[in-house]
């Protein structure tokens, strides 16, 4: 069978994908997954906004949707921490969705900070950040800069995001798991990329937090204080400091915002 000279070797959509890839290869970013997401996002952007509901998501790549749902999940949970009360049912459903996404990310082999698959962030900044951090000297300066604000990157940030391992491991949360869990979720928000987060957390002085009003479960090193704060054991009427748990989480969120601010400064410098 001969092809007419007007027919391209590849179908229309495929051709686009390849051309995207060719362009980006020239720029030195050989991430196939990212291309797939880019073409998918182009297609969905074309379909346009329809009244009432957002454009059909069926053409969104699985990874893109996962990223979106993850972001939404965290946003909704943060809303609670900002003072709006979530029903227990809703909190449980959100946390279960979060866990499901985490499991999937984990099984995709995304356990380390350096995985590129994580970086299909919806944030346009993420690519920019990645490019900058590709420089070898960045990890050196980043922890250095970050350490100055080490108090912001306190342990409560890491346990904020759930890990399926948490349930079984109460006594000593393995720092690696904590960090990777945190980095998974944080990367999803596009704040950080392949930084050596281990280095950041290594030297953090947590003594100031041990004497604070954090619920006892937190200071015990539990990895699941999201549950403690979202649905504190309400039967225990006189739990010390429980009323301040919302406030502590509030400060963690502001810490996250500070982190974002720090990253912006680093990128611009």
């Amino acid at each position, binding site marked *: 069978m001969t092809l007419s000279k007007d027919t391209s070797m590849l179908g229309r959509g495929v051709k686009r994908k390849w051309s995207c890839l060719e362009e980006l290869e020239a720029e030195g970013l050989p991430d196939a997954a990212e291309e797939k997401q880019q073409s998918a996002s182009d297609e969905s952007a074309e379909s346009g906004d*329809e*009244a*009432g*509901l*957002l454009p*059909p*998501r*069926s053409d*969104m790549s699985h990874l893109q*949707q*996962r990223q*979106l*749902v993850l972001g*939404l999940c965290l946003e*909704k949970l943060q809303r609670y921490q900002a003072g709006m*009360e979530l*029903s*227990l*049912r*809703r909190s*449980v*459903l959100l*946390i*279960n*969705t979060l866990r*499901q*996404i985490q499991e999937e990310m984990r099984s995709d082999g995304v356990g380390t900070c350096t995985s590129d698959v994580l970086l299909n962030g919806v944030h346009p900044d993420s690519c920019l950040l990645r490019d900058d951090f590709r420089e070898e000297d960045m990890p050196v300066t980043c922890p250095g800069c970050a350490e100055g604000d080490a108090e912001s990157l306190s342990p409560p940030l890491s346990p904020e995001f759930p890990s399926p391992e*948490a*349930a079984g491991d109460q006594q000593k949360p393995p720092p690696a798991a904590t960090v990777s869990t945190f980095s998974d979720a944080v990367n999803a928000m596009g704040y950080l990329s392949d930084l050596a987060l281990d280095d950041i957390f290594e030297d953090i002085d947590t003594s100031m937090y041990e004497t604070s009003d954090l619920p006892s*479960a937190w200071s015990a090193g*539990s990895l*699941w204080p999201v*549950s*403690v704060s979202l*649905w*504190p*054991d*309400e*039967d225990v*009427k*006189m739990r010390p400091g429980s*009323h301040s748990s919302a406030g502590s989480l509030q400060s963690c969120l502001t810490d996250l915002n500070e982190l974002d601010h720090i990253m912006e400064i680093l990128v611009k410098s």
Partner: protein
Amino acid sequence: MAGPGGDMQWCFSQVKGAIDDDVAEADIISTVEFNQTGELLATGDKGGRVVIFQQEVENKNQPQFRSEYNVYSTFQSHEPEFDYLKSLEIEEKINKIRWLPQKNAAQFLLSTNDKTIKLWKISERDRRPEGYNLKEEDGRYKDPNTITSLRVPVLMPMDLMVEASPRRVFANAHTYHINSVSVNSDNETYLSADDLRINLWHLEITDRSFNIVDIKPANMEELTEVITAAEFHPHQCNTFVYSSSKGTIRLCDMRAAALCDKHSKLFEEPEDPSNRSFFSEIISSISDVKFSHNGRYMMTRDYLSVKIWDLSMESRPVETYQVHEYLRSKLCSLYENDCIFDKFECCWNGNDSVVMTGSYNNFFRMFDRGHRRDVTLEASRENSKPMQVLKPRKVCAGGKRKKDEISVDSLDFNKKILHTAWHPQDNIIAVATTNNLYIFQDKVN
């Protein structure tokens, strides 16, 4: 009831509530319930008020026009409270109303907010005593020296007064938010369910209750499932069911053990792997469970469907009806705007042949089990002329939209019908939009 082979048509009868579009939050209807005879229709709202409508016993000569429902009694059931220990406000919103079967002249109902259940007595007074010896008519006391003769006070007719008084307050038994109340067929006990526990009460005793289900894990961090609804069997006083956020229903027998943590039956449909998504669990969460009147079936409502279960078969439902399958491709958006968490209720008609549930855009759906027919109707002010026949509505999922069809993207997701009720003996339905109560009846030819 629907004639054999004939299509049932529904007509507008009445609408209750404010006309203006500016909805006061306190007026949002949160529960609707007919009593056992259907003569009384109760609604609860977010402001903690209960409004009871009574069907007038007139116009029996006019078969095409059933009696109207008029306001019978209005009272403030619950007030907002503040839990000082936890620094939390307790909403006064009425979550559920359940009528007790009538035993004497007075009517009784249970109403509940998130934390406290109250038993209300609604009684009529149409006579008052007149002719006291020591008191004037206005209540002032007479000077005893002026009394020269004795008389017996006489009961004289007066304008009907309907009084509601709280007879029992069942408080401090629920740590979590109460989602269900169900009166037992023994007419002596009832259950109340919150997210993690179910308590059994005696109607006469308010200072204690029995905990019959407790799914709270020892470690709250392991919590993955909550109770979403519970109901007693209509005839077997030892049997009740409760549904969960994971789409399971457990049937428990109180004779088996004091604590019914071990279910007698577990109803669960295996998940369709082709439909798996990030939202699978959320949409499988059961928002309502209702036994059929004959006690052989139960109906569950999850986000997209209504399922009928035979109590003798746990493996899967015997019937499944899609309420708004066109929303399946929009789950991400519905997750974004929180609509995916909406809790729709469902109800049976008197002879268990038709089931009804609400949807968005002020649509509600009826599924005729026997004739395998379903219809979508709309509760709106536009279709509110007396006895106006409701036109079936159709949602266009995709492709070319036909005339009179409405496309999915034009649906108003703020107009949701969460609460519906069906008269136990007649074809009269009560449908609650955000702040209006619509009453429809079938067209009698």
